[in-house]
């Protein structure tokens, strides 16, 4: 009681504002500091999202006012062969791109996670394509995959194999695009894996070595579980990136040959910005959003089985 009284007296004598008022003031400051971001969020993310949800239920050609059509665009979309074909192309691209980039990025990170002279230079070299624009990458890719003058066909010729039409053959175009996308993006994922690898305590490897664990076992039982969180992050980011791919095909193939590399976002872009069908394009965007969300939720659900946050 005495203590309480003394405390109460002390509080009463404290010239600073009460805890409630202080928190209110802090909240106001917090809002003030966050307001630029909140404004940005509302104006450039929340509002366009809501607007596109509204447009997805309208017939909107960008010229006349939107006309409400309910779920008409979604009904059309489910019967749109081109949409399903582009979704198939996107899925095929993802199946090739996501595992290849993840495995390669991990391999590179392990190879470059050495304390050797000049290692920073190699790391930087793998990162250069990440910061290059797709237009530049398209030129580099042309030097490799041009059917007449490209390096890839020169190598095949040297090996006595026939030339290939890498970007002109419907059967090869998506694998070729996936290879180029891996080349461009692997550096970024490699950096994430490097950070993950460097967070694994060295003592674990030393203890395993003393216990006689082989290099493979050290990788299998220490490295892989140790970077499972990073691997999960890489998989989620890469999957989302793949489903949103646009710039690469827009610059390199424009969806050709005859639609074989037309991905869903390119289809969406054409509907909205070339064919005056912003309502339909918005419906495609929302279906794609739901697919990305579903895939991400599945990944989050599955991570419980294999990701270790130690």
């Amino acid at each position: 009681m005495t203590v309480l009284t003394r405390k109460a007296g002390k509080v009463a004598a404290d010239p600073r504002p009460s805890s409630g008022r202080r928190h209110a003031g802090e909240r106001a400051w917090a809002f003030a500091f966050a307001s630029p971001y909140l404004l940005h969020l509302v104006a450039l993310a929340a509002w366009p999202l809501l607007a596109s949800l509204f447009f997805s239920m309208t017939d909107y050609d960008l010229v006349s006012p939107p006309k409400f059509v309910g779920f008409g665009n979604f009904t059309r979309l489910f019967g749109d062969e081109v949409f399903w074909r582009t979704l198939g192309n996107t899925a095929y691209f993802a199946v090739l791109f996501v595992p290849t980039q993840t495995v390669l990025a991990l391999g590179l990170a392990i190879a470059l996670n050495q304390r050797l002279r000049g290692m920073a230079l190699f790391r930087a070299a793998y990162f250069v394509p990440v910061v290059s624009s797709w237009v530049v990458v398209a030129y580099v890719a042309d030097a490799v995959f041009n059917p007449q003058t490209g390096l890839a066909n020169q190598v095949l010729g040297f090996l006595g194999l026939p030339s290939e039409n890498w970007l002109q053959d419907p059967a090869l175009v998506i694998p070729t695009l996936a290879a180029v996308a891996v080349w461009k993006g692997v550096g970024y994922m490699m950096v994430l894996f490097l950070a993950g690898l460097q967070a694994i305590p060295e003592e674990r490897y030393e203890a395993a070595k003393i216990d006689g664990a082989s290099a493979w076992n050290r990788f299998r039982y220490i490295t892989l579980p140790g970077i499972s969180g990073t691997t999960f992050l890489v998989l989620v980011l890469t999957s989302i990136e793949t489903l949103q791919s646009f710039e690469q095909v827009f610059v390199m193939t424009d969806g050709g040959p005859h639609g074989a590399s037309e991905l869903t976002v390119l289809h969406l872009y054409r509907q909205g910005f070339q064919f005056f069908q912003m309502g339909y394009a918005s419906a495609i965007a929302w279906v794609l959003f739901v697919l990305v969300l579903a895939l991400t939720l599945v990944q989050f659900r599955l991570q419980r089985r294999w990701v270790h946050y130690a």
Partner: protein
Amino acid sequence: MRLRMLATAAAVLTVAATAACGGSADESGAVTLKLGFYAAAGDPADTTMRELVKEFTAANPSIKVQLEVAPYVKFFEKLRTEIAGGQAPQVWLSDGVLVQEFAARGALADLTDRVKTVNAADYSGIELNRDAKGRIYGFPQGAQTPVLFYNKKLFAEAKVDAPTADWTYDDLAAAAKKLTKDTNNDGKPDTYGFRAYSPGFTESWWPIIKAFGGDIVTDGNRKVVVDSPQSKAALDWMLGAMGKDGFAPDYATTEGLGKGVVHTLFATGRVAMSYGIYARTLPAASAGVDFGVAPMPKGPAGRGNVAIVNSWVVSKSASPAQADAAWKWITFFSGEGPQRKWAELGEAIPINKKVAATALPADRRQAFLDSLDAATDLGVNAVWSEYTEALSKRISEALSGASPVDTALATGQKEAQEVIDRFYAGQTQ
């Protein structure tokens, strides 16, 4: 203090709103006109257009022109969003094939009555802009039509006579075979006689199908009729040229050259003959190719001449004063002086007939003008971009050998018709 801030803010908003709606002529009668056109940065067309705008504003001091320029794809992408936001230029240069797309959606002012005030006989291409209902939404700025380009040096080396107006597709094939050469004996020609396939179908399958008696769209460009024995014969001829006859680079070789390079096959001497619109004279001349042009050869149904008339269009949301100023600009640009200056660029056939008759190089003039006179439009309608995209995919499948010609024509016709029907039947989008 607060009141003063509010008053200032209100004043700023009022000024901004007034500026945004400044479409009508002010008290002094001055009007501001936003004029849009597409050109790459630093392109000579950009420079010439700016000079012409200067001339125009000097002659019309009450009209102030704000320019909006961007490369082709960016220009039309931005234009669509500007229209949605009510910020579009009041007058802009439209690709001829897009005029009806914008008009059908209510973005353009009807120019039919204004066009009646000019002597139509003085200009080319006005009728190509008339829609199925007889209305005109664009006034010609420059025309493009394909003719047969041939490389004089390669013809002389192969001892082949220059093409004439009497040539048929058999004559073309016979000459092209003689012109195809494998100089380094690697089993693949280094020079081909003719370019049959091009991703730009104006210079490829479209006129060839028409020359063979087929057609692409009829009935006011609303009915797709490409699936016919004549179209099949045309595509078979092209496949033969790229296959068994071997005088034209095949689909993969052409596409493998890249978007920009395809159109320079002739300019780089890789092909001895090619169909090309007037704009192709520029790269050929810059590359120093000694070339001539001739009418496209005759097929069973004629030459299949087609044309695109790039046109000035006026926004429907332009105020009456702006629409008048826009029309003033259009008539100024169509006049002899500006047309002559524009013709110096060498990128389009002048639409002013008097200028076209004198400003075009004498050895090329007749072939282009005859082709333009005989041309039909390129199947333009409200969904031109979308239906030709659907059709092109299928036809390129056939020309690459990925699917049989019959199947490609039938599927292409069905898919293109679906696009047209969806718009004109007024269904969901």
